[in-house]
């Protein structure tokens, strides 16, 4: 499944690296006590430090450092116990200090790796993408150009918010790999809790580095497309940019090292500035801050506080719970889904007096096909599902002990989503209990056979495929409440 661009002159290979900016989920900013909530009124979350008033000084927020270290540990990265903050100097109206405090020379987190599944259809084919480093830095404010006819306004709420810059190795070779990497990274960040991963709110955005080359040859010149803010857009950026570069090269042109912008409306990228216009950022160690020195106890506390991570969890679902790779992948792709599932599992096992591994397959199948399907139709997600795991477990128990059939369970689920009532209440109220009363089943079977004498004759004449028809008619007559096994038995007997 090697991805290649078929050019007029032959095949081209795409080389991709991502620099992902992830906002660290903390209540206050990287170097000040100001709040970080999304969507506040402009300039209501700005301290004297964030506005760079004269004489103000940065003081590192321990929790931001802690979250970045936890993230590093979650991707198996080297934690640098000695790191340092540098100033990146440039002038812009959204940058009050005239410099961004970042980490160029000595980042907090070194080499790590992320395992991805490039293609959902082949959940057991994985690839490891290298992470070069994670460093911590300040976000800038935001310019507002639509507030005044001739002036721009500045909102400093984001100024000084903590970001992690997570820099991958140029290890990706297709749009799908780039998409899978970003999605997997987001999954990990959400598991760790170090970033909410809400790309539509700007909590996570990617700078996409793309170059093309003849397979196996030296790396080509890359372009960097800035601030791409969804998995889909990252894939589109790679796709468009790679094809554009191939077109340029094949028509005898050269790729210019430049910064580009992605336009979501057209799905294309355009040039923002070339290397010649690039700033000289004059990086140097921030003299307001001491080097950041971490002790073993701090790092160990970070490690101990990590939850079970997606890869480990997925592996456990497959081996200990016996789930299919596909289900294991779907259930672990998101920390909240996994949490939901594990609650469902625990409650199901308790209610049915069985072990978790005994109920896991039924629970995972119900969740991934029944509940996800139903929620999808309603345009809802698990997060705003009216059905909670406790109610799901009750429903699964009703199926498990034969109170209702699988098909009735679908009806019950619909009612649960509609009313929010518990499945037990719905089954009772609507009289949906499965009947195992052989007398009633026999009566229903007799009526069906009597009404379809012609088909009975055909069946007895050898057309055995009609058996399913009789089952269906009987179940229909019984409003789906007949115990399917008993219905089968009775039919078999009566049809001889």
């Amino acid at each position, binding site marked *: 499944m090697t991805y290649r661009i078929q050019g007029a002159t032959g095949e081209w290979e795409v080389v991709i690296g991502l620099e992902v900016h992830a906002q660290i989920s903390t209540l206050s900013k990287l170097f000040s006590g100001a709040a970080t909530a999304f969507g506040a009124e402009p300039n209501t979350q700005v301290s*004297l430090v964030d*506005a*760079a*008033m*004269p*004489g*103000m*000084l*940065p*003081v*590192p927020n321990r929790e931001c450092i802690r979250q970045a270290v936890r993230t590093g540990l979650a991707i198996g990265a080297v934690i640098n116990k000695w790191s340092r903050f540098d*100033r990146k*100097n440039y*002038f*812009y*109206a959204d940058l*009050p*200090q*005239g*410099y961004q405090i970042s980490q160029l020379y000595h980042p907090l987190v070194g080499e790590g790796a992320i395992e991805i599944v490039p293609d959902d259809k082949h959940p057991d084919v994985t690839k490891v993408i290298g992470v070069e480093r994670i460093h911590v830095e300040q976000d800038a404010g935001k310019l507002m150009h639509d507030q005044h006819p001739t002036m*721009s306004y*500045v909102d400093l709420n984001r100024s000084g918010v903590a970001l992690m810059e997570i820099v991958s190795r140029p290890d990706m070779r297709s749009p799908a790999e780039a998409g899978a990497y970003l999605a997997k990274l987001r999954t990990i960040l959400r598991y760790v809790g170090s970033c909410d991963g809400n790309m539509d709110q700007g909590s996570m955005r990617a700078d996409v580095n793309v170059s093309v080359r003849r397979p196996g040859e030296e790396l080509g010149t890359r372009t960097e497309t800035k601030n791409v803010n969804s998995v889909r857009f990252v894939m589109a950026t790679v796709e468009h940019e790679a094809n554009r570069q191939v077109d340029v090269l094949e028509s005898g042109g050269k790729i210019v090292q430049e910064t580009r912008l992605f336009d979501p409306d057209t799905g294309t990228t355009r040039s923002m500035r070339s290397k010649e216009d690039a700033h*000289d950022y*004059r*990086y*140097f160690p921030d*003299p*307001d*801050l*001491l080097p950041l020195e971490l002790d073993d106890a701090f790092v160990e506390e970070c490690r101990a506080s990590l939850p079970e991570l997606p890869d480990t969890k997925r592996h456990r679902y497959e081996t200990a719970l016996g789930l299919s790779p596909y289900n294991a992948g779907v259930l672990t792709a998101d920390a909240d889904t996994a949490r939901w599932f594990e609650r469902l599992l625990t409650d199901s096992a308790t209610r049915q007096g069985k072990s978790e591994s005994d109920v896991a397959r039924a629970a995972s199948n119900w969740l991934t096909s029944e509940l996800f399907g139903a929620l999808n139709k309603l345009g809802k997600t698990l997060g705003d599902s009216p059905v909670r795991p406790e109610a799901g477990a009750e429903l699964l128990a009703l199926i498990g002990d034969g109170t209702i059939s699988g098909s009735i369970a679908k009806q019950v689920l619909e009612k649960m989503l509609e009313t929010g009532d518990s499945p037990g209440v719905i089954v009772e109220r609507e009289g949906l209990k499965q009947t195992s009363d052989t007398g009633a089943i026999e009566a229903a079977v007799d009526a069906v056979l009597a009404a379809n004498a012609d088909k009975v004759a055909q069946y007895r004449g050898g057309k055995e495929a009609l058996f399913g028809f009789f089952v269906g008619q009987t179940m229909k007559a019984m409003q789906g409440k007949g115990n399917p096994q008993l219905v089968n038995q009775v039919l078999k007997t009566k049809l001889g």
Partner: protein
Amino acid sequence: MSELTELGIAAIRDGVAKGDFTATEVAGAFNAAVAEANPALNAFIVTTPDHALAAAAKVDAARSSGQPLGKLAGVPIGMKDLFATEGVQTTAASHILEGFIPPYESTVSQKLWDAGAGMLGKLNLDQFAMGSSNETSAFGNVISPWRATGDTAARAPGGSSGGSSSAVAARIAAAATGTDTGGSIRQPAAFTGISGIKPTYGRCSRWGIVAFASSLDQAGPMARDVTDCAIMLEAMAGFDPKDSTSLDLPVPQWSTNLSDDLKGLKVGIPREYRLDGLNADVAKSWDDGIAWLKDAGAQVVDISLPHTRYALPTYYIIAPAEASSNLARYDGVRYGLRELPEGAGLQDMYAATRAAGFGPEVKRRILIGTYVLSAGFYDAYYTQAQKVRTLIARDFENAFKEVDVILTPTAPTSAFALGEKTSDPLEMYLNDVFSVPASLAGLPAMSVPAGLDGAGLPLGLHLIGRPFDEQGVLNAGLAIERRAGFAAKPAKWW
């Protein structure tokens, strides 16, 4: 009540406590002296007589109700206009901050008010503390109260804390705050016959002090004598969680531990400071200093600080580099001056604002700093300078294995006349040659008056101590002070 202005910190504090006079009387006397002298000296950019009186009234009320009084109860001081003072204009002597009124109080000034001091006004300085003669202020030169014998030419009060030195020497402030990046407390103190100490880097919080060069800037007291410096430093120093480079150490009781008995003390005399063509008066006062310290019981040792000759170039790379970045925030966007020419875009606004707002010396240092941090030059200048800085610090570490304190002159000459060195920046920078090494190494260092030169102008002696050993520096300073018997005062000509 003019005799009240003759008093320093300890005398005022004790007099107020005993009830010899009230704090309000003291504040009134100093306010009057400021009003009389400032038109001539230009030491204050703004005066704040009401602040001084309000602080004094609080002290008097506290005394009459029997409450405990602070270390500086009733002492009216001048505040260098680099310290942010809530509700009072803070300019760093730059047009770019003219009219800027901070909604916050610097940590050091707050500590001084908490100790019972009152503010007479905001003291003039070299613009953004860049200068050695107080001739770079956007609010005019400060004039030293000192004149050479038989000469009425206006003399430099030193810089950058020139308003501070002028005011304390002229007896229009009991004491003043200074800040020192490469000598800005010590050189002005030497020029005006007063005492001043730059403590170990990190002793005083930098929070709320307009930054010049963050890794070098330190606040300290400028006062009539060593004891007053010790008292005032106790009030200024202390750990501040708002400054990441602040030292988390208790503040010693330097003033109560003062002693001029130097028996067993070893004093180092660095041979590299014997510059070719060293001014004869300065050389003589250095020899006097050696003799006084011996007299106090110290043993004098010849030492070497081999990297001294690189200190000045190193300083003039590191300080401008940091300044070029620290001063980027003055951009016309949020506060201070904004120049917005017709049709100007953002870049034009920056250019116009900074062109109009910064003085020539500030611009020169921003350019130097920008240059040394630029791609292609960074390693040759900035990285190299940081390495040399480490070597300079190591020189001192080695020296302090042998000696306890180091004695040098504070400045290569006595106060020069205004305008004498403004045409040649390099000659001006040479004024810091003795003071800069201790700044680069973050060491405590002080200047104490040693005597007058042939022209009747004060000379200072410079003491450098181990990190955190302000006590050693102060004690040696006290020994010199007692033996030098410096009692000269500028004749009042204003």
